C-alpha cells in the first residue's frame, strides 16, 4: 500500500500497512500537509486525486487522514478547505466503491493522540472495511463539534 502522509510520526506508525514507496494499486493512505497558499492547497488535493485515481482503477482501499481540528473548521480557511474537501471526497469515493466493493473512509485525529493509536484505527478500518464513507474521529479535543 502507498502511505503518503505528511505527518512523519504517523507515516512511520503506518509502516505495518505499507510505505511511501508502496503501490497505490494495492491501496492508499493519504494525509495532506499543512498549507499556507491556494497553490499549496490545490497541490495537496491533486496529490490525493492522483493516488485515489490509481487505487479506484484497482478497487483498492483509500483512507484519508486529516487533522481533526481542520475537519471541523477550527483551522485556517485553506487547511479547513483541504480537510473538509477530503471528508467529502471520502464519501464520494465510498459511494462509487459500493458497486465494485472498493473501500473508502476518513480518519480525523488530534495531534495529541499517539501516532500508534491513529495508525491502529486506520489498520482496523482497512482490515474490517467498516465505516464506509464515514469520518472516524480519534481523540477527544473535538467531541461535540458538528462534523461537516
Amino acid at each position: 500500500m502507498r502511505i503518503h502522509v505528511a505527518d512523519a510520526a504517523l507515516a512511520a506508525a503506518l509502516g505495518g500497512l505499507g510505505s511511501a514507496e508502496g503501490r497505490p494499486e494495492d491501496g492508499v493512505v493519504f494525509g495532506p500537509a499543512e498549507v499556507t497558499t491556494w497553490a499549496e492547497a490545490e497541490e495537496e488535493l491533486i496529490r490525493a486525486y492522483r493516488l485515489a485515481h490509481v487505487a479506484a482503477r484497482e478497487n483498492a482501499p483509500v483512507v484519508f487522514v486529516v487533522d481533526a481540528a481542520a475537519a471541523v473548521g477550527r483551522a485556517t480557511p485553506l487547511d479547513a478547505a483541504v480537510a473538509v474537501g477530503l471528508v467529502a471526497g471520502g464519501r464520494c469515493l465510498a459511494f462509487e466503491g459500493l458497486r465494485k466493493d472498493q473501500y473508502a473512509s476518513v480518519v480525523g485525529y488530534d495531534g495529541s493522540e499517539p501516532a500508534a493509536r491513529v495508525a491502529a484505527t486506520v489498520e482496523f478500518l482497512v482490515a474490517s472495511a467498516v465505516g464506509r464513507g464515514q469520518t472516524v474521529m480519534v481523540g477527544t479535543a473535538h467531541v461535540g463539534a458538528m462534523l461537516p
Partner: protein
Amino acid sequence: MSLAIVTGAARGIGQAIAARLVESGHAVLLVDLDERVHHTSTELGGHGVRADISQPAGVERIVDAVRALGVEPRVLVNNAGITRDSLLRNMDEDAFRAVVRVNLGGTYALTEAIAPLLVDDGAVVNISSRAQLGNVGQFNYGIAKGGVIGLTRAHALALAPRLRVNAVAPGFVESEMTLAMPTEARQRVVDAIPLGSPGQPLDIAEAVDWLASDAASYVTGQVLYSCGGRSFA
C-alpha cells in the same frame, strides 16, 4: 443602499439570487465569465462585470468594479461553479483541477479579497452542494463543495464578530447545469427527493437572501441544505 456581489450571476441560480437581492433593496454587482452577464444585469437593473473568479486578474477586476461603484459593499455571494462529472477511475487530472480551482479556489480568493471591503455586520454566503455528502461521479465536485464548507466554517471563525459567513447546499435544482443530464438519470435523481420535485433557482435565492439579511444576524458558520429533504433520505 448597500451593494451585494453575486458570482455566476449571468444565469441559473446566480441570476435568481441577484434578482432576489435587488428585490430586497440591494444594489447588485453581477459577476460572470459569460458575456450574458451584461444582458442579465441590464434586465435586473444591476451592474455587470465579466470576470473569471479562478484567475487572480479576474478577482482584481471584481475588486476594481466594487470600488468603482462607490456603494458600500455588504453582501458577497460565491455562487459561480462548474461540474465535470465522471467516475474517479475515468476522471482526468484536468477535470479534477478545473472543478476544484473554480468552485473552491475562486470562492477562497474572492472571499479573501472582498471580506476586508465589506461593511461591519456584512455577510458572505457560499454555495456548496448536497453532493458533498457523497455522489457517484463527483469526486472532484464533492471535494470542491466540501472544501467550500471548510472555508465557510473557518472564515466564519476568522471574520467573527465583524462578518457572518454561511453556506447554502442546494440539492437538484433546475438550471442549465442540470438540464444537461440524460433524462433517465435526471428522473432517478428526482424520484429520490422526498418533496417529489426538483428545486427551482428561486428556492435557493430565498435561502441566500435570508442568510444575507439581518433576520439571520445570529447565524454564522452554518450550512442550510435546500434539497427537498434529500440530504438524509
